[in-house]
């Protein structure tokens, strides 16, 4: 965030500040005191399961939803009561929202015409934008004659041409097939590198979020669960929810009993398994139980030196992923997933014993789900 100091004052005008934003529909409150600062040039991704309020907040930024409470500033100006066109934003919608009755050219020019931009300038800007996005050949076509990817490019062109202070993307890639989605994602990333326009991007796809975002805002039920760089979110999830939401295959979460051991160690036991952790890393004082979180990649097969700890069970299910296999190991109804090299070749029904990498485990409060990791704990 210190990077912004090198930018010119004009560009600095495009920071977003949300202070205690609230959205209510009648009696039900769907966004609870949302606080966020988005720096100039930053690419922020709102991530969360459906219904978490991410699109609502985006639409509040755009001016498409009323703001029920709090303040919204864009570029230093309070914009709560400004209509969309006066907020200096441009938006790309999930289903492109192209004007079906207009040609691609007219779609792109529609906003500029409203601003009474001279025709010559409109033409030159269309040329510029369509060059950038490779749309020259399609300018005279109707949107229905284009493929999904091309339509999405038109939608981006329509947003770009207005040279907005802020780009808003509302799940722009979710209507595309997997291959095209990858391709467009990379294009959006490149575009941001070139234009450096402040961007807020909404998605439910963690892969998009991780790859595109400078910072991720993880939302749940209208509240911020965690804000941070992708790495922070992945490595230091602030809650069991974040930990479970981020990362594929998902983290194993299991409630266990806490037993203090000598030498600053703790042992967590439960469901026929146990793991030893460094008690100094976690705020475990006075706790009898905690939720253990361990990613499948951070489990390995028992070796000679792993003094009795670990999870025993039989192989219940094997999912082949290529280089690796995801193996469900279970005992007494509880299962734990582990990524193993394909070469290890586990077989169904085979008894295994898994040991967690003690440096990589997470512990959460059983009731609140809050992480018990001490802030100063070092990660590997």
């Amino acid at each position: 965030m210190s990077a912004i100091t090198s930018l010119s004052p004009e560009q600095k005008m495009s920071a977003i500040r949300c202070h205690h934003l609230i959205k209510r529909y009648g009696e039900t409150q769907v966004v609870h005191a949302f606080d966020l600062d988005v720096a100039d040039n930053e690419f922020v991704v709102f991530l969360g399961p459906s219904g978490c309020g991410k699109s609502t907040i985006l639409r509040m930024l755009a001016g498409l939803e009323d703001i029920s409470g709090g303040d919204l500033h864009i570029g230093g100006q309070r914009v709560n009561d400004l209509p969309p066109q006066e907020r200096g934003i441009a938006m790309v919608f999930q289903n492109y929202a192209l004007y079906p009755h207009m040609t691609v050219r007219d779609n792109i020019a529609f906003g500029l015409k409203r601003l009474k931009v001279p025709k010559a300038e409109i033409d030159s800007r269309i040329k510029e934008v369509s060059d950038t996005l490779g749309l020259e050949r399609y300018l005279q076509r109707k949107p229905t004659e284009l493929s999904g990817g091309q339509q999405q490019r038109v939608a981006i062109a329509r947003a770009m041409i207005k040279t907005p202070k802020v780009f808003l993307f509302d799940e722009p890639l979710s209507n595309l097939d997997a291959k095209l989605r990858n391709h467009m994602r990379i294009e959006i990333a490149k575009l941001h590198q070139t234009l450096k326009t402040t961007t807020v991007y909404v998605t439910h796809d963690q892969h998009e979020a991780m790859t595109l975002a400078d910072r991720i805002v993880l939302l749940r039920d209208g509240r911020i669960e965690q804000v941070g760089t992708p790495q922070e979110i992945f490595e230091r999830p602030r809650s069991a929810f974040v930990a479970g939401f981020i990362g594929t295959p998902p983290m194993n979460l299991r409630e266990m009993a806490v037993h203090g051991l000598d030498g600053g160690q703790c042992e967590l036991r439960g469901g026929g398994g146990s793991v030893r952790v460094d008690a100094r890393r976690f705020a475990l004082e006075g706790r009898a139980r905690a939720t253990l979180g361990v990613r499948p990649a951070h489990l390995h097969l028992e070796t000679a030196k792993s003094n009795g700890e670990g999870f025993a069970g039989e192989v219940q299910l094997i999912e082949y992923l290529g280089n690796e296999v995801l193996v469900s190991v279970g005992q007494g109804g509880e299962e734990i997933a582990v990524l193993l090299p394909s070469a290890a070749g586990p077989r169904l029904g085979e008894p295994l014993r898994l040991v967690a990498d003690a440096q990589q485990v997470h512990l959460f409060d059983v009731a609140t789900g809050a992480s018990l990791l001490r802030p100063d704990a070092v990660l590997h």
Partner: protein
Amino acid sequence: MRSHKTRLPAVFIGPGLLVLAVLALVPTVFAIAISLQDRELGQADTGWVWFSNYVQLFSDRRFLNSVRVSLVWEVLTVSATMALAVLMGTLMHRCATPRWRQVLSMLFIVPVLLPRVSAAFVWKFAFHPLFGLITWPYKAITGEPLDLFADPVLALLTVAFVDVWQWGLFFAVIVLKLLETLPPQPFEAARLDHAKTWEVYAYVALPMLKAPLISLAFVKMVESLRAFDLIYVMTRGGPGISTETLDMYAFSQGFIESGRISYASSMAVLMMVASTVAFTYIWKWTKPS
């Protein structure tokens, strides 16, 4: 959803709603007022007679008959229309290629678009005892002309036939389109369960379309109120009063036989109240949301 309070809804809905309300409510109020008077066409002096018209109605044999005929007409045309629509729609869905569906759909819309006056005339002529295309084979075989309009029961059935012809075929197209909106999986699943074709439709497809089919029946109930044009052109309520529906009798009383518009209006008011209450109830009942 709109961030800025716009007056658009008021500006857009206001005038239309105002016009509708004036055009609907003023006549309604007038209809009630007139029904409480003793207005006759061409007679300047009118006075209030309050409910005497209504009292008279219930001892008027023709009024009671017309209520009966109207009810028979509703039940007959609605059920026959729905039966024809479901049958033809299903047959098209099952047995016709897409191209034939297209052709038949076009053809089946023709009758409903015909002005009812035209439809009535076209069939009246087709059923003409001497020159009719339909009655001709009967005449050629038996040597006797077939006069459908002379028999009280046949006359009603014949007029109802024309109504069902107009609406049943049109609804068949809608049933077809509805069937086409259904996902194919249940059909395939039922077939894998060794269901016969008709069973697939009777137990799988049509139950899935229950809601739209009820809506269709509702539309037909409302439209069946407009029997007047057909009856006016084809039978004038005859023979006797066997096809005299409420609107036909009200019109007769107001215009053909006597100019008793107050008396006619009292019938119209009863009809309006009955249909509004009945349809509102049915509507709310079929659309619980």
